């Protein structure tokens, strides 16, 4: 599986309140949430984002509230992958559980800038910055998480394992 797109770049501690402000949490519809994605940190994001685009951030991406609406809005906005130096742990779980690919890679986070064209090979964990002609090796998921991602989310994985049992 591969992803390719243009990069939106953010800094440290991007919290889930700026990813999807609570004033929109009276909805749980992915399409509606997507129209407000990143609104309080980058109000032009939803106007510019195209299917396949990539978010690159620094430390502790997705900190704060456990709202799954945050990764849901990012996925529904068309983002194919989030790369960060580190992720907050609840966001990390949520992204995997809903099948939004995320990669921890400090080198890529430092070596990729806004507007760069980036390609990601999820099978090898390789990240290619086509604009700067550089490449980075992202951290591979543990086998357990790969199974959840392969099943396209935790609920499908549970269905499968229940059937096997």
């Amino acid at each position, binding site marked *: 599986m591969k992803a390719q797109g243009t990069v939106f770049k953010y800094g440290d501690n991007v*919290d889930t309140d700026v990813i999807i*402000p609570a004033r929109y*949490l*009276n909805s749980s519809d992915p399409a509606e949430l997507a129209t407000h994605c990143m609104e*309080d940190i980058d109000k032009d994001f939803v106007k510019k984002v195209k299917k396949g685009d990539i978010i690159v951030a620094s430390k502790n991406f997705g900190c*704060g509230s456990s709202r*799954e609406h945050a990764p849901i809005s990012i996925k529904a906005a068309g983002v194919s992958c989030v790369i960060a130096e*580190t992720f907050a742990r609840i966001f990390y779980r*949520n992204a995997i559980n809903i099948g939004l690919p995320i990669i921890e890679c400090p080198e890529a986070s430092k070596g990729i800038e806004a507007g760069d064209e980036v390609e990601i090979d999820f099978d090898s964990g390789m990240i290619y910055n086509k604009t700067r002609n550089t490449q980075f090796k992202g951290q591979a998921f543990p086998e357990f998480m790969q199974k959840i991602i392969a099943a396209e989310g935790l609920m499908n994985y549970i269905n499968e394992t229940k059937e096997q049992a």
Partner: protein
Amino acid sequence: MGMTMTQKILAAHAGLSSVEAGQLIEADLDLVLGNDITSPVAIHEMDGKMKDSSVFHKDKIALVMDHFVPNKDIKSAEHCKCVREFAARHEITNFFDVGEMGIEHALLPEKGLVVAGDVVIGADSHTCTYGALGAFSTGVGSTDMAAGMATGKAWFKVPSAIKIELTGKLEKWVSGKDVILHIIGMIGVDGALYQSMEFTGEGVLELSMDDRFTIANMAIEAGGKNGIFPVDEKAEAYMKEHSMRPFKAYEADADAEYARVIRLDLSSIRPTVAFPHLPENTRSIDEVGDIAIDQVVIGSCTNGRMDDLRVAAKILEGRKVKKGVRAIVIPATQKIYLQAMEEGILKTFIEAGAIVSTPTCGPCLGGYMGVLAEGERCVSTTNRNFVGRMGHVASEVYLASPAVAASSAVTGKISGPEELGM
């Protein structure tokens, strides 16, 4: 190698004799929690994707309507209706609607639904609050909640731990809120990322249960997976008063390995304020300068308990909220509300010019009941001061203790009780 307190609880719930940091395990859950914002997403996941959408145990799920209730708009009402119908369909024992509800993390310990030794997940990041009782509890998202409700299990990566050794005793007007803000200021908002924060030392004995709930509650603001306290006489007394359930007190092994050890003398901590826009931007009350405010909020899962209301009332007794400042007090549960009424505390607030609201998370997350306009500043006893957290992106939240919040309401600027001559 020895295990930390958290690791011991996780091992016991995974049916393993020992676990180590980094290990992936599947643990049995004693309780799965959700609220009116996160539960609808989980319910949709269960109903939409599960072939068998039954719940694992109707007594071990808690659904608390607390964020946008009494419903602030039609969409919020639809969310609560969805949860209400789910609770009825599955005969969920612990469904708390308007009239019985409280802010979830104040309500569950009060109802005796969590005790020492439990493993609890909740689709709310402040689920880590129950570590005050010696339980392992952590926040998750809606899909984890759905999986938990369906299977009674959750996967965890066993965390390493930061040991926080407390000594000494808090000075007057200094509380658990100041302790946790001080620690977050020291280690940063990702200082405990993926880790447990294990509080130990003789200083723990000096902390009230309400102080411990406040401290464990904000472990997530340091990125922590959980915060946890040893089970002492105070914790035992609390559980015996509130719960019929047996509890199990786990202790860290003497040779447990910690990623980091922090020693903190409680008597050295001053009232502490976190400036916008991160909880790590802390300053002592002596360093805050002259900052005029528009609003004060006293409440939330962090600071809406009896200790919090009593200290705020002590400060507001016989004083007035400064003209131009809106002071909003929110007792965290119906029981706390009633107790505060019986103690005459609510009268004190109202006579001082504050308002008293039914329990709700509303203003903490900028939902309703105290949303800020552009350029406005609020001193709040809540837990987050991110950009736009309480309203407009150009508004500001200063996190503080109930004592500082109440004092600030009187002076109209960020102040400690000492400024009032107390």
